[in-house]
């Protein structure tokens, strides 16, 4: 949840030691693997832009990898997504992500150019790297944040995240060391609009470790076959089911509606635990965070752990027999009734409406010309 707490934040009394006062600028680690930038990095540039503007400092992308045309192109993209400059470290040793090499690379850059904020995605790579970098630099790190704000009074970053299994949110500050570090959940911050003409400058810095000094070797990479895995995190349309679906066969109703809408099927944790849906489909605190244009929840009560994973959806509709179900507190539309009856009815209604609109558009199209 990105909203700020209503009550003012109570900060303990701590002074920033003199040596950190000169630390300036907001940095975003640009995570890429096999030529593919993780979208969370662009999302973070969007948020980072906001923080940097508020602080009146520059926003930088941090790009680390093997030399080549690919990485040069990525530097340009960081500008398009809002960075003013890009710290670039290229070396063959940095070809694959390895903790030791990347930790050395980032800590060198931080110690040289001294940013006040360093953000990374809360991905397997980002969390592996952030923990090591923070410990090496002996600075504070807040994990898996869902909200970031600046308190201009002391230039500190307020990092919010779910706590106690998601029942509550907490705001964490780091007042005594720099940089202030945070990893941020993918799909929580919106993707900024890309401006390919935005200029920026590249600051190159040499990497000074040889391959012999990097202990761990990558001997293989087995990519997930994309085809047979649901791409829930990036789906624009999701129909999700919870315990209220009653039994595994009833999930077919969701798959059937999903087909009509070209949607992905999501599930609450109890539905996944019961084996009604694949673990890949779980939405929420311990599953995926999604940000679709449309989210339909059927037989989902709307527990906070589910909510944190889907409340970023543009439009939310919920089906529930219980008019007082918490899910209606954060849905746009309430369909109070039995999901087992309403889902097939919705499929029919959607199919009819879409066919109608399509027919109208095709008929009227020639007239427009």
């Amino acid at each position: 949840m990105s909203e700020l707490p209503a009550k003012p934040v109570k900060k303990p009394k701590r002074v920033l030691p003199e040596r950190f006062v000169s630390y300036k600028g907001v940095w975003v680690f640009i995570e890429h693997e096999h030529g593919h930038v993780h979208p969370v990095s662009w999302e973070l540039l969007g948020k980072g832009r906001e923080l940097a503007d508020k602080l009146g400092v520059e926003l930088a992308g941090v790009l680390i990898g093997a030399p080549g045309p690919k990485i040069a192109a990525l530097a340009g993209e960081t500008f398009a997504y809002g960075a003013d400059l890009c710290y670039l470290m290229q070396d063959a040793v940095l070809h694959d992500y390895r903790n030791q090499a990347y930790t050395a690379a980032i800590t060198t850059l931080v110690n040289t150019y001294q940013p006040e904020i360093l953000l990374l995605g809360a991905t397997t790579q980002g969390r592996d790297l952030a923990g090591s970098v923070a410990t090496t630099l002996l600075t504070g790190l807040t994990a898996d944040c869902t909200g970031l704000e600046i308190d201009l009074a002391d230039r500190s970053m307020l990092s919010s995240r779910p706590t106690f299994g998601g029942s509550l949110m907490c705001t964490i500050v780091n007042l005594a060391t720099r940089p202030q570090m945070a990893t941020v959940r993918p799909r929580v911050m919106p993707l900024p609009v890309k401006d390919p003409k935005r200029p920026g400058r590249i600051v190159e810095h040499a990497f000074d470790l040889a391959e012999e000094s990097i202990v761990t070797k990558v001997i293989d990479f087995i990519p997930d076959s994309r085809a047979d895995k649901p791409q829930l995190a990036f789906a624009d349309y999701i129909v999700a089911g919870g315990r209220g679906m009653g039994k595994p066969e009833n999930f077919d109703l969701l798959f059937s509606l999903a087909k009509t809408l070209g949607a992905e099927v999501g599930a609450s944790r109890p539905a996944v635990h019961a084996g009604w849906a694949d673990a890949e489909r779980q939405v929420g605190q311990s599953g995926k965070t999604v940000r679709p244009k449309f989210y339909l929840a059927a037989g989902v009560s709307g527990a906070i752990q589910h909510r944190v994973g889907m409340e970023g959806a543009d439009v939310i509709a919920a089906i529930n027999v219980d008019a007082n179900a918490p899910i209606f507190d954060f849905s746009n539309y309430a369909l109070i009734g039995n999901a087992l009856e309403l889902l097939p009815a919705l499929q029919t209604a959607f199919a009819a409406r879409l066919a109608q609109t399509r027919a109208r558009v095709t008929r009227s199209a020639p007239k427009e010309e």
Partner: protein
Amino acid sequence: MHIAVCIKQVPDSAQIRVHPVTNTIMRQGVPAIVNPFDLFALEEALRIKDRTGARVTVLSMGPPQAEDALKKCISLGADDAILVTDKAFSGADTLATSYVLAAALRTLHEKQPLDLVFTGKQTIDGDTAQVGPGIAIRLGYQLLTYVSRIAKIDVQDSRIVVERRAEGGVQVLESRLPAVITMLEGTNTIRFADMPGMFTAARQQTQHWNREAIGITDLTQVGLKGSPTVVAQVFAPKPKAVRALRIEGETPAAMAEAFVDKLFTDYPQLEEALLEHLDQLAAQEQQS
């Protein structure tokens, strides 16, 4: 071969409730358990013990009652249990926690050299996944996070090969011992304690180590003082300002029609985007 497993006692978060009026956490009566993610780490260590006869030591930093969690690990088959406990350690964030655990592991290493340190992927109360990486950096051990399988261990040669969950695939890594492994959940099935195990756990003493025992003299590195991050506020998520619009309808069909109509009247751009999306899917299908 000597393996240490770091475990934490946590409140069973499935049973935590928030007071509806005061928004405070109601901890009374919430049972304490071994952090569920740590059990996958323990099981992996016990499997290595089963194969090689390795010694498995479980280690936890926490208050005296955390001993129960360590006893549970003994009942499952761990050989030794050490509770690192000292008033000065309370209020620690991950940086201060890894400082203490690393000091304890160094002490343990002096008694019998360590080959592997396991941690869970993350705790369910802290939820940071930072303590494992922190320990590795502080000890100068190789860090292998999100490990889904240990393919090979060669203690003679100090080599290890693991599979690690990365973004978009699995990395196969070859590394050197000693290493810190954070174990991915769901990668093994945890055994049950048997009768002899439970008797051992009841009989066996848990060692308690305070700050002197692990050679900590610099109190600015531990507990609240050694923690750069502080919780400034705890708050309940704000309810959305608008309540859901209730869709009326005598029958499911009528309600469904009313909903679809209302949805696309309120959000015409959604209908456009949806039609475009369906066209794209149809085109893709034709191609393949």
